[in-house]
């Protein structure tokens, strides 16, 4: 955790994320009812309405803030559930091996191959629209990505000495998976969770944009749905869709940065090269120079 706070990428990511987390928690109380008609429709940004108004005369800033909570909450829940299912399927396949593994890998690969959006739409078309439906659909279509990486890791941990020892002692498979295997892939679980959350937010916004969510609620996806349906583009009202899109991108970018930083921590080579090049003042590493593993390179100056 301390190392994470010393990493520049992680700091940027955590800072952005913290801002959005605060907005998500207190935002809805500050802005009140974001669906309220406040001014002339499609008014450009002004002092009274910093981000202008929508095609229905609602305040864009208020809508962006109000949408933060529901969007992020659903994203985190879906991210957690996909990793949970991925962990169950992945460790089962990796631990038991044999035909269990063959069968589960087949199912994982099938779900990986199917294009997510059409599958989402097929399922969502038959269910009452709302965030519960969207969450369910995203979990069904998204779990295979985490299952795949977790299976690979579980497979290699299964061969490790301490797992063999536990098997010899006669521990139950459930206990081994919970106490020996899962704790040893914490960093993988965390990065999969972050990756799954990025996917969930993007896909959720996409589905809501198509009008498959509850279009009466205020979320980032429905904001964009209304922006594209109320002549916002032809009339030049860029402010109706830019704030929401920028928020989505910032959250996604922040999560990706944290993931990159975690990768660098578990694999020190990744970040070391640039630090080395900068410290030695060279243009680039020679092709055959070994990857520097030192992080502090103050004493390697020319």
């Amino acid at each position, binding site marked *: 955790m301390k190392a994470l706070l010393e990493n520049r990428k992680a700091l940027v990511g955590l800072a952005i994320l913290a801002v959005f987390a605060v907005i998500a928690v207190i935002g809805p109380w500050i802005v009140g009812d974001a669906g309220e008609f406040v001014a002339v429709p499609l008014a450009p940004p002004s002092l009274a309405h910093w981000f202008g108004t929508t095609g229905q005369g609602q305040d864009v800033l208020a809508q962006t803030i109000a949408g933060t909570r529901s969007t992020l909450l659903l994203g985190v829940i879906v991210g957690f559930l996909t990793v949970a299912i991925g962990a169950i399927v992945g460790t089962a396949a990796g631990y038991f091996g044999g035909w269990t593994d063959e069968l589960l890998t087949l199912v994982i690969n099938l779900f*990986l*191959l*199917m294009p997510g959006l059409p599958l989402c739409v*097929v399922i969502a078309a*038959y269910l009452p629209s709302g965030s519960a439906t969207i969450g369910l659909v995203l979990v069904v279509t998204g779990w295979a990505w985490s299952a795949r990486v977790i299976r690979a890791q579980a497979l290699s941990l299964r061969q490790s000495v301490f797992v063999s020892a536990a098997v010899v002692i006669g521990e139950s498979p459930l206990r081994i998976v919970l106490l020996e295997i899962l704790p040893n892939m914490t960093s993988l679980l965390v990065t999969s969770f972050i990756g799954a959350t990025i996917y969930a937010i993007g896909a959720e*916004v*996409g589905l809501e944009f*198509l009008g498959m969510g509850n279009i009466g609620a205020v979320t980032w996806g429905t904001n964009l749905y209304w922006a594209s349906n109320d002549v916002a583009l032809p009339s030049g009202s860029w402010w109706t869709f830019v704030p929401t899109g920028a928020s989505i991108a910032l959250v*996604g970018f922040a999560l990706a940065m944290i993931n990159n930083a975690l990768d660098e921590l578990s694999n020190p080579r990744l970040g070391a090269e640039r630090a080395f090049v900068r410290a030695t003042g060279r243009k680039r590493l020679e092709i*055959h120079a070994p990857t520097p593993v030192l992080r502090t390179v103050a004493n390697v100056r020319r």
Partner: protein
Amino acid sequence: MRFLLRRFGFYLTAAWASVTLAFVIPRLMPGDPATAMFARFRGRLKPQALDSLRAALGFTHAPVWKQYFQYLSHALRGDLGVSIGYYPATVGSVIAQALVWTLFLTGLAVVFSFVLGTLLGLASAWKRGGWLDGVAPPLLTLLGAFPYFWLAMAVLFLFGFQLGWFPLRHAYDDQLTPGLNLPFLISVSQHVVLPALTVVVVTVGGWMLSMRSTVINVMAEDYVLFAHAKGLPEMRIVFHYVARNALLPNLAGFGMALGFVLSGSLLTEIIFSYPGQGYLLIRAVKSLDYPLIQGLFLTTTFSVLGANLLVDAAHVWLDPRTRG
């Protein structure tokens, strides 16, 4: 050959699974499509019509396994039923028209983005720590964080509505007759620029980063060092020794990601009213055209399976070990 046959077997299983899924999903859900449509046309349909509607959608009173085999035999013959939104056109004919445009747009954008991303990844790994290596990854990560359709909206707004450089919607000018004539081809290429550009911008970063990391691993291999020791020209080492080997894991990832990329490009089509599968999908959802929704799910899945088969063929061509 054995490799390709095994993969082909897997794709057949996948095809069967998706056909079955399209059958099972509507039957797992509360209610059935016929009742939903009936409710939508409040009062304008006679109760007797409900039964014929059910029959048309394959929801008969026959036992489920009988329905399933009937459905399978229809699907095998390519008979996907009749579209409700485009009645009396069949689902097959409606989709066939749209599929051409999706394959054109997505194929073009995906191949271009993969080639560009791979080359960028190769270049940035070859000169690790150089300026390209410093600037491109964070920039492309940021661009990749935008949802496809949002970037499509922004691009359409800027280059379409504000600057007027490119046409706003559809795949070609309505006043032209489709065919192999110059004005039509020019119009088609003008219309494809913006949608393709958005797909490329969002996806190129992913290809670049994964290529970069595999290239760095391959560069540490002994055979690359040996190639240097032999005094081979640098270009030859880059393309014949490093790139060819680094491409293999990337190609496998390419196949896996195709479904994801296709989903995004369907959303892009909707923004640009590009007459492909995505545009059709949103029309089908809005008009509760269940046969069409199912048909679109099947054809998009089959396109991804077909594309993966091509990727496997490329794998065999690049990697002599799979030819055994």
